[in-house]
């Protein structure tokens, strides 16, 4: 892992391994970032190749200037920092603007955040104008307004442009020279373009052909003077060698043809045509011709002069070659001219031009027929280059003898007589020209001379082309470097710098450009560039699959390590093979056909930041030392830019960190509790600083997880499930070690091995892998000098890697969070203390009411409820219980606030049970548990959910009858002496109250049992009435009362009802009640009217009663007439609820209560109870309420009863009790008796003509009635069909057709839900006419109804059916 932080540990640039925290104890490197070195920026500026100045706008002068600026302006720095831009600029810029005004405009742009770039002219110390290009950039500074200017001296570039101009001028001069040659030549010369139009012509041509030069130019040469052959037959243009020269790129010399003059005459010509080159392009043809008419005449005379003539010819041709060569600007151009001239001038069959450079021969161009021998060594060209003299091979035999190796490559037919001639210049050999000839002709001296001359000219041309190319390249490089500097100075993003750099190099100085840097995992590829984007992504993929070997002794890794450049001028296949990882890699690299490579370090301040590798592939170009120096220059600039970008990035990061910390502090300073603060903290950290953040807070038992946040909900779920499982000794766990060392830990790159070492088991490992941590930071949360917890920042899916900056930020975060948590805890403690004081005050106030509450609670359950409720309230406990001892067991009466499992265990437990309550009862001693530790020590349970509390025995008569238990969730809960005293007093009160309740309850149970046994069983069913009875004993803890009721059915169709109340409680009252009830029943059964019954009862009571008083009401109802007679002895008035809803208290028949003193006659009252009306008899417990006049109770009862008017008796009971008592247990016994007269009328009664068509309407009525009665749909259907069948029978069988009669339907439903349907006819039964048909009716009726009775009489047939209807749901 390399420290990638600029300015870090200076010379230590090599790889450093950082092990994961927790993986290897004691070996983890703990890193602390240093401060940003002072003067870092200045150092960067100082060594920049471009002049850099920083202008303080407020002061109006430069504050910084680097060495390059000193050189540029020719002023020492001490001087520069005293002046501003005005002093080093002319008053006006070349475009006429005043310099000051123009400069202000650019500076304003820079201040707006732009990076203006513009041309400028500066003045140096000598007053000389320096053309510059300037880049402005605002420099962030808290106190000053600073603008940085980087000034590029563009004089170099201008110079390159000048060279290009000069070369252009040379080319123009050459053309001028050519035209002067044209003018002075004796032969006719003209040029045509590729369209055969004349482009130029010389005066000789004009003279011979008869057109003026002006007339010739633009005309068609072939049409004008070359249109016919000597005999006059037409000469097609397609056969014309002049026209073909341009197409074929070949020169030819032709004799025996004629040119036609303007006047129509012709003359024999000999002409030479050669392609006209412009650069590498053939732009036309040059034709040189001569009138041979005189020569033919004087042929013989001139034959002697043939040699001279030939020499002249060669000289002329050389002239053409010269002019053609002079126009060439590149070596390939030279080759092209040389080839064509070799063929034309010397009649070679094939020509090859090779360039000789640094001892290497390279074929530049070739032409003619067949293959050429090439640069092979041994070979003629190589020998010629080496020897500096021509090499001649005269025959195939000589070929075989001299170059056997080369010969193997060539066919027999290709072994032509050959001459390889060096191309010399000033003693140097620049190349070789190899010519092959068709016949074994021997070149004469003249030819050899011409070849030598041509070779010399070619040499010159090559030299010139090389110079030109070099000049051009140098110019290009200058431009290139200037461009690169511009790009770099305008960029502040590291990645952009790198990408721009790579992009810039392709294709101008490389086919491929790759930028690498060292990374913890090896060598990273930062950028790849190629002119084809598809190839780029392919190469990126390849570099991922085959990353550079970080340990390779040479190549990228070595350059990155050593900072020294590497150049491979020629990449051989052996190198490729050696470097390839496997066959596939080899194949891959071979397809690139890389031929040359160089790798240069990108360095700054002595450190290597990256390496640029430039590769030549398909273009076939090769790098040399010059290229390497150029690349190094480029890399230096890139290094500065990169450093600059990093500096800027750091600056920005510092700012961001500061604002982040400010935000965190703000969030944590809010008055929140610990959990809330932690939630805020992790919420801020994720996702800005981490993908996953966990916080643990130390407690005496470990380091439990306190907060988790993750950007990805799934990861959060995993983390929440995984991290609480975190166990292990502190020396091995990173989290815990952070606590002891109070040192942050950084793991830049998490490996799977670390995860394995960290995981206690496979499941944990799988969980960790699912979280996918890439890089982690662990920091302690520090408060008051010690670590109170730890925080982990984990980078996962974002792929971010933490560095020293992140570590520093996290550490600061840890400090602030620790402080915030500590504050929150203090706050919580303060609050708790305040709350405790408040609770104590409340307890004192409560104490006074507890006694009263316990005193008034009568039942055991109620006492238990009070004990638990008051105890919890007084102590501020979370849970409380009270238990009673039953032999060796305890039974809990009430438990509140315990976790379910604990509550279940408490329900019933042995005295030996290992918890405080059992122990307190067993030992009859208080158990105080003031801390989780003491709990642990005493009961061996380390993680009790409620680990503090108290258990006190309830002692009566020196014996523990039970105990009370109260618990707290706090790990510490002290019991002050005052509190202990209070609780012991409370326990004593509880014991007494419970004891008392136990006693009361025992008595109450006996009385209740007695009373219940005396009350009559549910009354028998009495036709015409329904009776409902209710007896509600008062709540527990209250003595059983003496309320009673009775229903007596007399034989004569009368029914008597009574309700009585014996004043007093307990067993005695119950006994009196039993006697009174028996007596009343006896008197009633004798048929006595109510007045007499009560009178006799009063006498009886006077005899049997000791001290109690009793009241009674008795009513006697005649079921036939509805007459009700009644009498009362001190009892509240019975109530009649009419069917329609009216209510009526029966206030007559008053008499005194039954007492020992009684002896009076009691009067009767009378009323009528109609069908559907209900009579209510009740005891005063129903209507009496404390602090309320009795009239109010009577009013409430009447109201409730009216609401139940018309309802069945049971429903009246329920509704009345519900309305008056609700859910509450009555304070006194309540007896209620409801007697309702059953409605006697049939609900539906119809008599209709016994005809089939009468049935449907009747069914309709019945259906409506049943629905109105609330009968369910299914039951309705059953009743309808049953009645339908009975009616059908009557219609079909009762009457003869001539004596139509009637049929009667009568359906009623009683209170109890019994439905009775009756169908009668009044005719004589006729036997069914068909057997099958009516056979189905009766079974259907029987299936549908509960009972079916059929009575056939003389007067008709009566079908009676019953069905129990379910009450509506």
């Amino acid at each position, binding site marked *: 892992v390399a420290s990638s932080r600029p300015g870090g540990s200076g010379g230590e640039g090599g790889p450093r391994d950082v092990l994961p925290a927790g993986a290897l104890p004691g070996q983890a490197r703990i890193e602390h970032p240093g401060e940003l070195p002072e003067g870092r920026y200045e150092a960067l500026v100082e060594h920049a190749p471009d002049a850099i100045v920083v202008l303080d706008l407020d002061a109006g002068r430069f504050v910084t200037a680097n060495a390059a600026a000193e050189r540029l302006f020719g002023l020492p720095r001490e001087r520069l920092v005293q002046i501003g831009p005005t002093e080093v600029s002319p008053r006006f810029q070349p475009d006429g603007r005043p310099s000051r005004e123009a400069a202000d405009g650019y500076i304003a742009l820079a201040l707006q955040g732009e990076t203006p770039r513009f041309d400028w002219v500066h003045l140096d110390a000598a007053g000389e104008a320096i053309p510059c290009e300037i880049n402005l950039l605002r420099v962030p500074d808290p106190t000053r307004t600073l603008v940085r200017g980087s000034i590029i001296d563009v004089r170099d570039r201008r110079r390159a442009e000048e060279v290009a101009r000069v070369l252009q001028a040379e080319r123009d001069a050459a053309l001028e020279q050519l035209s002067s040659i044209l003018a002075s030549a004796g032969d006719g010369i003209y040029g045509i373009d590729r369209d055969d139009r004349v482009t130029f012509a010389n005066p000789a041509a004009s003279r011979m052909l008869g057109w003026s030069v002006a007339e010739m130019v633009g005309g068609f040469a072939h049409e004008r003077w070359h249109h016919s052959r000597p005999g006059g037959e037409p000469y097609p243009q397609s056969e014309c060698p002049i026209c073909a020269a341009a197409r074929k790129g070949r020169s030819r010399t032709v004799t025996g043809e004629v040119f036609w003059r303007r006047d129509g005459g012709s003359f024999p010509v000999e002409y030479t045509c050669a392609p006209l080159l412009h650069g590498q392009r053939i732009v036309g043809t040059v034709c040189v011709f001569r009138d041979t008419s005189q020569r033919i005449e004087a042929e013989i005379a001139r034959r002697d002069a043939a040699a001279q003539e030939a020499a002249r010819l060669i000289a002329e041709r050389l002239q053409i070659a010269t002019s053609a060569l002079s126009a060439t600007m590149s070596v390939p151009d030279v080759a092209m001219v040389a080839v064509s001239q070799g063929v034309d001038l010397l009649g070679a069959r094939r020509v090859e031009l090779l360039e000789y450079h640094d001892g290497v021969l390279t074929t530049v161009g070739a032409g003619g027929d067949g293959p050429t021998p090439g640069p092979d060594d041994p070979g003629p060209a190589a020998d010629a280059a080496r020897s500096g003299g021509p090499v001649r091979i005269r025959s195939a035999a000589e070929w075989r003898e001299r170059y056997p190796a080369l010969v193997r490559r060539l066919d027999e037919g290709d072994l032509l007589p050959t001459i390889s001639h060096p191309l010399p210049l000033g003693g140097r050999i620049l190349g070789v020209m190899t010519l092959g000839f068709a016949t074994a002709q021997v070149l004469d001296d003249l030819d050899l001379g011409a070849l030598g001359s041509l070779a010399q000219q070619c040499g010159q041309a090559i030299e010139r082309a090389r110079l030109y190319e070099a000049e051009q390249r140098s110019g290009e490089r200058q431009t290139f470097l200037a461009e690169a500097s511009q790009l770099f100075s305008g960029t502040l993003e590291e990645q952009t710098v790198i990408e721009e750099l790579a992009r810039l190099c392709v294709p101008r100085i490389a086919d491929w450009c790759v930028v690498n840097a060292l990374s913890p995992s090896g060598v990273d590829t930062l950028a790849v560039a190629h002119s084809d984007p598809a190839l780029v992504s392919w190469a990126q993929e390849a570099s991922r699959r085959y990353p550079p070997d970080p340990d390779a002794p040479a190549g990228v890794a070595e350059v990155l390590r050593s900072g020294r450049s590497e150049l491979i001028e020629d990449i051989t296949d052996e190198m490729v093979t050696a470097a390839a990882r496997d066959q596939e890699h080899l194949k891959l690299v071979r397809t690139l056909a890389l031929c040359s490579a160089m790798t240069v370090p990108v360095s700054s301040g002595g450190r290597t930041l990256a390496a640029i590798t430039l590769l030549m592939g398909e273009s076939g170009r090769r790098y040399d030392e010059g290229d390497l120096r150029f690349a190094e220059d480029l890399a230096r600039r890139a290094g500065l830019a990169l450093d600059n970008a990093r500096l800027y990035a750091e600056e920005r990061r510092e700012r961001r960190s500061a604002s982040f910390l400010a935000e965190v502090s703000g969030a944590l300073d809010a008055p929140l509790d610990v959990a809330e603060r932690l939630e805020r903290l992790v919420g801020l950290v994720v996702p800005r600083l981490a993908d996953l953040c966990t916080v643990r807070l130390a407690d005496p038992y470990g380091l439990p997880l306190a907060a988790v946040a993750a950007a990805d909900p799934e990861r959060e779920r995993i983390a929440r499930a995984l991290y609480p499982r975190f166990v292990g000794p502190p020396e091995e766990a990173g989290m815990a070690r952070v606590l002891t060392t109070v040192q942050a830990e950084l793991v830049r790159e998490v490996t799977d091995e670390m995860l394995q070492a960290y995981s206690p088991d496979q499941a944990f490992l799988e969980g960790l892998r699912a979280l996918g941590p890439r890089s982690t930071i662990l920091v302690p949360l520090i408060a008051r000098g010690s670590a109170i917890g730890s925080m982990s920042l984990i980078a996962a899916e974002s792929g971010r890697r933490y560095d020293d900056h992140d570590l520093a930020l996290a550490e600061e975060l840890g400090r602030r969070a620790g402080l915030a948590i500590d504050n929150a805890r203090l706050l919580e403690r303060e609050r708790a203390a305040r709350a405790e004081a408040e609770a104590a005050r409340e307890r004192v106030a409560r104490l006074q009411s507890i006694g009263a509450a316990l005193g008034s609670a009568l039942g055991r359950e109620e006492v238990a409820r009070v004990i638990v409720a008051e105890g919890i309230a007084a102590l501020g406990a979370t849970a409380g219980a009270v238990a009673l001892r039953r032999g060796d067991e305890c039974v809990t009466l009430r438990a509140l606030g315990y976790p379910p499992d604990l509550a279940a265990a408490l329900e019933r437990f042995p005295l030996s049970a290992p918890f405080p309550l059992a122990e307190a009862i067993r030992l009859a001693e208080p158990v105080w548990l003031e801390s989780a530790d003491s709990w642990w020590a005493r009961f061996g349970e380390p993680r009790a959910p409620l680990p503090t509390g108290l258990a006190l025995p309830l002692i009566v008569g020196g014996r523990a009858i039970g105990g009370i238990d109260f618990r707290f969730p706090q790990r510490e809960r002290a019991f002050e002496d005052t509190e202990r005293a209070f609780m012991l007093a409370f326990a004593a009160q509880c014991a007494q109250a419970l004891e008392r309740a136990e006693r009361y309850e025992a008595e109450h149970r006996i009385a209740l049992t007695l009373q219940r046994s005396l009350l009559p069983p549910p009354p028998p069913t009495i036709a015409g009435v329904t009776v409902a009875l209710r007896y509600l004993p008062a709540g527990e803890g209250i003595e059983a009362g003496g309320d009673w009721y009775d229903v007596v059915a007399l034989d004569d169709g009368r029914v008597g009802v009574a309700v009585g109340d014996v004043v007093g409680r307990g067993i005695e009252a119950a006994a009196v009640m039993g006697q009174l009830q028996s007596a009343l029943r006896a008197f009633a059964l004798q048929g006595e009217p109510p007045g007499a019954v009560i009178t006799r009862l009063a006498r009886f009571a006077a005899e049997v009663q000791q001290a109690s008083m009793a009241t009674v009401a008795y009513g006697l109802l005649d079921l036939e007439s509805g007459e009700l007679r009644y009498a009362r002895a001190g009892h509240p008035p019975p109530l009649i609820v009419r069917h329609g809803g009216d209510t009526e208290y029966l206030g007559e028949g008053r008499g005194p209560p039954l007492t020992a003193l009684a002896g009076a006659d009691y009067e009767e009252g009378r009323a009528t109870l109609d069908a559907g009306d209900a009579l209510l008899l009740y005891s005063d417990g129903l209507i009496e309420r404390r602090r309320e006049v009795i009239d109010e109770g009577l009013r409430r009862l009447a109201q409730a009863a009216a609401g139940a008017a018309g309802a069945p008796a049971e429903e009246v009971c329920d509704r009345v009790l519900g309305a008056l008592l609700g859910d509450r247990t009555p304070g006194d016994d309540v007896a209620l008796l409801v007697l309702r007269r059953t409605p006697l009328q049939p609900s539906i009664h119809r008599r209709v003509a016994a005809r*089939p*068509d009468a*049935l*449907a309407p009747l*069914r309709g009525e019945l259906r409506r009635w049943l629905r109105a009665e609330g009968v369910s*749909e*299914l039951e309705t*259907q*059953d009743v*309808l*069909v049953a009645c*339908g*069948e009975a009616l*059908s029978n009557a*219609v*079909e069988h009762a009457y003869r057709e001539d004596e139509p009669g009637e049929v009667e339907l009568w359906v009623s439903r009683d209170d109890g839900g019994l439905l009775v349907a009756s169908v009668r006819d009044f005719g004589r039964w006729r036997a069914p006419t068909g057997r*099958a*048909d*009516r056979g*189905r*009716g009766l079974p*259907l009726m029987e*299936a*549908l109804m509960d009972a079916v009775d059929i009575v056939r009489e003389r007067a008709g047939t009566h079908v009676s059916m019953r069905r129990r209807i379910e009450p509506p749901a």
Partner: protein
Amino acid sequence: MTELARISVEQHGEVTLARLAGEVDMSNATHVAAQLLAVASGGSGALIVDLTGSEYLDSAWFRAIESVAQGLARAGRPLRLVCAPGAPTRGLLELAGMDRMLPLAASVEEALDGVPDG
């Protein structure tokens, strides 16, 4: 007099589907039977009688449907009944054992599935 029972007809290929709505008692049972036979003459396959919409049926209806079944059986044509569970008369049909005499489907689709040429 308003019609007590209403019959609507659909033809499904050779199968005739008659939907019976309303009530059938002794006053109209014979008429309903005649109507069903008339309706069935429109097709040559099975007759499906859907009773889901019926509100009242009694033994008169059972007699009528038996005569329809016999009439169709003579022509070699099956009769199917449909009555959806929860329909007012479904319980009665089951109680009377009608489902044992004639196939009783819960839906028209089920009945169509069970007859040829559906």
